């Protein structure tokens, strides 16, 4: 662990700029209308950048490259699904959702089905999904912090939490819009520039150049290019494909050379240091693909096919169930702008996802030792210094670390702001002060959980919150927008059953991880079952309780689908909380103009 001074400076810069931008734009935020939906004045281009900036979380910035390093071609479904989710959102939800005039997801449910019970239930699901999504962001911040300076993991989490809570408290949605838009472009630069440089280095050196671990098409696993020492931080089980000489120093006196045989697992205790001679094959943590050829080709068995479909379904429909993504769509002026926003998001995300995949490919060749510690999320930041020695590598690593911090900051601020909005308007009175109280409370709870709970793979735990979103809110939104006969009872049963099944899968997964990993693929990727069940139950119960179809369904459908120029749209936030101008007239002029 050596300190990279460039990384310290760049991360400090990102945090300072974030803090400053949030502080500056906060001055314009006065009313609940500002805090919840930024007065609905965000134009499509800026909102698209803000949505993309918020959506590219640690799971995308660090996790995708790590998964490509570990799983190869099968990991490519994550970027596809992350982007396809916005296509589904655009085709089915974006325009009508904005036209509903709702200001939070629970508010949309009440606007459509006029049921306070459903509103309360969806409030809790929003908070649950939000916290589940926020945890990996904060934990990732801690992880990234330990990689650039000798600090405990909680320091990074605390830093990110403090900055975003300050910004959200200061100006809510109004403050974080500019922030997130800025952070998208910064993240794109921070990942594109190092990728171009590293690819140039790789091409000029050629495959199999000094420092690389061999060409990717070899059937054998990657090799260590030099004598390499690896410190193992947690207990791992490693496997090798060929007999491998290894020097094991388990930290408590026992040290010596042994030969690991292929086929049998080798358990290594935490704190051990392994040393491999030059040219030996890189062992891998269980579940990771060891041989390059397996890694390079997508899996062709039936389990792989089905779990790919399941993942795709979860990401496709899960995006529209993420409260922080939806809450950004309420900030557009009208339905047409919301739809245009989504088209641009598709472009921005497609552009971004080219780069983490390329970094993942390079890291397979240059930092294969991460396969031993299982710490594959660190691949992006560890790669530049492994490929380029000296200051050049350090500067690139610093840029990537800063991009990762921008990812934590923008996603976490979006999550905290959307959860605060929901809590302030549904559980509290909906005044600006309630919003601030809610943001402190949410951030505090998430911080405590993030510091105390163990860290998982970033992209995988995010995957679970996508499955949860796809099984709870996606059926409600799609059916609520397009199907007149939906009743609140059907919606409630569908949401609770879908959410319950995913939670069951989460629990089973955790149990199986501690008792030998017996869980089948369906428990790890439950969406293929839970989403159809949620949709089916919603339709079935709604049909059975058709007497409960709300009486104003015709008027609501008119509002959702009538084109914007006809002017049927009603802003529910203004109806309930009043406009900014009225609000400032009634309060003391505490804020500067």
């Amino acid at each position: 662990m050596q300190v990279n001074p460039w990384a310290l400076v760049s991360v400090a810069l990102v945090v300072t700029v974030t803090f400053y931008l949030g502080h500056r734009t906060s001055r314009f935020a006065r009313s609940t209308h500002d805090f919840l939906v930024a007065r609905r004045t965000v134009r499509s281009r800026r909102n698209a950048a803000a949505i993309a900036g918020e959506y590219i979380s640690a799971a995308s910035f660090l996790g995708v490259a790590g998964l490509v390093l570990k799983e190869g071609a099968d990991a490519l479904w994550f970027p596809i699904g992350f982007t396809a989710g916005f296509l589904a959102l655009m085709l089915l939800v974006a325009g009508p959702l904005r036209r509903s005039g709702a200001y939070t997801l629970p508010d949309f449910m009440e606007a459509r089905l006029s049921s306070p019970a459903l509103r309360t239930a969806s409030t809790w699901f929003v908070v649950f999904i939000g916290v589940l999504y926020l945890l990996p962001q904060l934990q990732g911040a801690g992880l990234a912090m330990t990689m650039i300076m000798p600090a405990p993991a909680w320091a990074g989490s605390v830093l990110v939490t403090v900055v975003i809570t300050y910004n959200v408290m200061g100006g809510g949605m109004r403050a974080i819009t500019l922030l997130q838009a800025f952070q998208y472009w910064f993240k794109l630069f921070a990942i594109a520039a190092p990728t171009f440089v590293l690819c140039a280095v790789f091409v000029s050196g050629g495959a199999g150049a000094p420092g690389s671990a061999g060409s990717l098409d070899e059937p054998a696993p990657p090799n260590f290019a030099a004598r390499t020492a690896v410190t193992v931080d947690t207990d791992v089980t490693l496997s090798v494909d060929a007999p491998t000489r290894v020097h094991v120093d388990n930290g408590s006196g026992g040290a010596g050379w042994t030969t690991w045989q292929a086929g049998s697992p080798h358990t290594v205790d935490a704190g051990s240091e392994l040393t491999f001679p030059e040219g030996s094959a890189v062992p891998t943590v269980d579940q990771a693909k060891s041989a390059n050829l397996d890694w390079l080709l997508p899996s062709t068995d039936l389990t792989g096919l089905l779990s790919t479909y399941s993942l795709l379904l979860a990401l496709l429909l899960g995006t529209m169930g993420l409260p922080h993504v939806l809450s950004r769509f309420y900030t557009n002026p009208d339905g047409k702008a919301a739809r245009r926003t989504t088209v641009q998001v598709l472009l921005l995300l497609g552009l971004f996802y080219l780069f983490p995949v390329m970094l993942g490919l390079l890291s397979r060749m240059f930092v294969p030792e991460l396969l031993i510690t299982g710490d594959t999320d660190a691949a992006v930041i560890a790669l530049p210094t492994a490929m380029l020695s000296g200051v050049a590598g350090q500067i690139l690593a610093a840029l990537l670390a800063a991009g990762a911090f921008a990812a934590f900051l923008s996603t976490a601020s979006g999550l905290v702001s959307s959860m605060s909005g929901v809590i302030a308007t549904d559980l509290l009175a909906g005044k600006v002060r309630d919003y601030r109280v809610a943001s402190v409370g949410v951030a505090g709870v998430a911080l405590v959980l993030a510091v105390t709970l163990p860290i998982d793979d970033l992209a995988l735990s995010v995957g679970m919150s996508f499955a949860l979103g796809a099984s709870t809110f996606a059926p409600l939104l799609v059916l609520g927008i397009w199907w007149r006969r939906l009743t609140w009872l059907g919606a409630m049963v569908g949401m609770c059953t879908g959410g319950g099944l995913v939670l069951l899968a989460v629990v089973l997964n955790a149990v199986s991880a501690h008792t030998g990993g017996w869980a089948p693929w369906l428990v790890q990727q439950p969406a293929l079952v839970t989403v159809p069940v949620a949709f089916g139950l919603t339709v079935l119960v709604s049909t059975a309780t058709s007497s409960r179809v709300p009486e104003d369904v015709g008027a609501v459908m008119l509002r959702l689908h009538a084109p914007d120029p006809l002017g049927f749209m009603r802003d529910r936030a203004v109806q309930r909380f009043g406009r900014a101008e009225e609000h400032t007239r009634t309060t003391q002029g505490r804020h500067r103009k």
Partner: protein
Amino acid sequence: MGDATDPPEPAGRPGGIREPDPTLGKPAKPFAPEPVAQPRQTRSSPSAAPTSHAASRSSEPRSSEPRASEPRQPRIRRQRVVLAEPSRSSTSLRARVELEEQTSWGELLIKDLVKVQLRTAVLLGLLVLAVLCAIPAVFYAVPAVTELRLAGIPLPWLLLAVAPFPLMFGVGLWYNRLAERRERDFVNMIEN
């Protein structure tokens, strides 16, 4: 593709600005004959009275708002133009009222719109989904495909890491165009 208010709507109100705009001091009314009548005013004024207008005000010949700058003669003439087509604005108003009041005809109009928008969305969605789902199915059915190469890069990597993104963006652009055209047609139908 630009900001929401970039291109002026052919038949819309000035700038397409609606209720949420903060520059409007008061909340917009539910629906009023004013926005319907206004386009007729602005559209007919340059064509109906260019000659007399240019004769009376040679200093600003191209202004379409003589009402604000000049309170005397043209205001009377302008009112006559509005009164000249009361029948059209009242049918347009009636169409809106029918939509708002949920008469059987108004409900039918909205149901048709919903149906056609949903059909477009589902068809385009299924198109993309079929292409995406076909990729792993082909890998499963014909494993030899996974070993093909294009310019030295394995075909699966090209198919998975590059190809889906332009496809999805293209379909998004296409749907946006279709949906906006539908809505424009619908507004034209209601207002005429």
